[in-house]
């Protein structure tokens, strides 16, 4: 069934869009990532103009994250206090990121920077996570139920300490604010929620328990992507509501299924799977940069990236 999208101004198969939404929703629920790093490239392949794909997927991520966060709230796996601290940094970061984005767009290199950041971040994080979680699985098979977390690193020696009961942490607010800000900057430039950066940062830098990390990350993603959606809607008019609704329907259902799957898997297994997924997307994007494209030329409307 073909459907005409009013803002994207193309006609696309409705079931294809529902499917994309569904797949991304499942992953979002399972891993606590917004899925932006997947949905945006998938929309490109479906023939949606990049500007519309980026803006609309931000809107879609809001919905699947809410669906996911509610499921996590019920299981009490959201550290609301930590989420708010991260968010404070996140909003400052995304405001900064938008400035950088506009600057890069003016010189016509936004596409390159977005791709490069994807490759660098996805590659680094994916590889680190993959190695770490494989080790964790090996250790737990060796008899220990849980890998020991490092209780004290430099993060714990900073001032302005705060108690995060849900996470069982008593740490300085500076690291979470900085992490939130960094994610905010990247979110605005890369057009994603930033969960794939947030999740590992929370686990390895802040030392939060994996089960709490996913819900908390989703909570922060809701606000950052919501902010991004509004920004895109008012400055570029590139949020396509019909496209968003189709993705939403698939996405929210998928997120519920994903949360259930995630609850059944062990934390280490979850991390290996997420690491693999991140690496696959990274490889796909790196290929586009390294090999000669079939079409060297590209078209863009004047005044846009």
């Amino acid at each position: 069934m073909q459907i005409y999208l009013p803002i994207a101004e193309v006609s696309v198969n409705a079931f294809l869009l529902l499917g994309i939404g569904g797949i991304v929703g499942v992953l979002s629920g399972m891993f606590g990532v917004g899925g932006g790093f997947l949905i945006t490239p998938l929309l490109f392949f479906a023939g949606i103009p990049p500007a519309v794909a980026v803006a609309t997927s931000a809107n879609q991520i809001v919905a699947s994250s809410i669906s996911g966060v509610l499921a996590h709230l019920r299981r009490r796996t959201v550290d609301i206090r930590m989420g708010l601290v991260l968010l404070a940094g996140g909003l400052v970061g995304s405001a900064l990121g938008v400035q950088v984005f506009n600057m890069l767009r003016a010189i016509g290199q936004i596409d390159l920077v977005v791709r490069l950041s994807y490759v660098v971040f996805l590659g680094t994080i994916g590889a680190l996570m993959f190695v770490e979680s494989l080790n964790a699985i090996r250790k737990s098979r060796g008899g220990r139920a849980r890998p020991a977390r490092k209780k004290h690193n430099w993060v714990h020696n900073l001032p302005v300490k705060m108690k995060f009961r849900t996470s069982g942490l008593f740490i300085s607010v500076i690291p979470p604010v900085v992490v939130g800000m960094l994610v905010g900057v990247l979110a605005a430039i890369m057009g994603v929620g930033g969960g794939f950066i947030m999740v590992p940062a929370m686990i390895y830098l802040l030392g939060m328990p994996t089960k709490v990390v996913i819900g908390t990350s989703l909570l922060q993603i809701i606000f950052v992507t919501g902010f991004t959606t509004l920004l895109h809607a008012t400055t570029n008019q590139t949020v396509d509501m019909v496209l968003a609704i189709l993705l939403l329907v698939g996405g929210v259902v998928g997120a519920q299924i994903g949360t259930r799957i995630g609850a059944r898997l062990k934390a280490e297994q979850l991390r290996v799977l997420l690491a693999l997924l991140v690496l696959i997307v990274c490889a796909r994007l790196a290929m586009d940069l390294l090999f000669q494209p079939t079409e060297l030329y590209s078209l863009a409307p004047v005044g846009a990236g």
Partner: protein
Amino acid sequence: MMWRALIFFLFAALPAEAEEQVVAGLSQTRISISTNFDGSQILIFGAVKRESPIPAGPLQVVITVAGPSEPVVVRRKSKQYGIWINTAQVDVDAAPSFYAVSTSALWNDSISDTEDLRHKISILRAIRSVGASIPGTENFTDALIRIRTGNGLYQTNIGTVKVDQETLFDTAVTLPSNLREGSYTVRFYLTRGGRVIDSYQKEIAVRKVGLERFLFKLAHDQSLSYGILALSIAVFAGWGASAAFRLIRN
């Protein structure tokens, strides 16, 4: 004296130009883009009106359909530091968002190069490009035509106009689903020996209707409300799905 001579020449030239005239019609003068829009086909037909016997030489018909023009940036990638990045760009001042040219015979038999230049009939001539600062600008316009031809937005349909008895003609032009909104111009050219003897122009309005129109207008006229509405739908959908799944599980 000069102006009298001028008038004389004008009147002398006129009957020769108007010896044969195009009378033309379209199957539709407006195209509505609704939610289930999946491209469209317009039938273009017409007749040649003449008061004198048919002149010698074959009569040819060239028909163009052009969408609204807009500026385009064409960028070219090249390999630098081991990766493929955009290194050069050319601004094309105005390129039609859609362009189809249909002829009744081979291109060279239908229209001469000078007439093509004067009336801007072929796709290449319909694109206006001034920014020739980079050597090889033609590569960029070629790329523009190649990419848009691949998307079905630019079409050169040689020999698709059927001319009957040197009087009636008809053709069909397929419009793809990724149409830009606006006023589309259909131009008709009657030619003999490559020379244009008469031309005629008609408009087709391509407009979004219903929900499509409502959303498009809202997004552009009241972007903040539109953004808030989009967000509210997202919030509601997320909450709704969560609540629905809880009901199912209980």
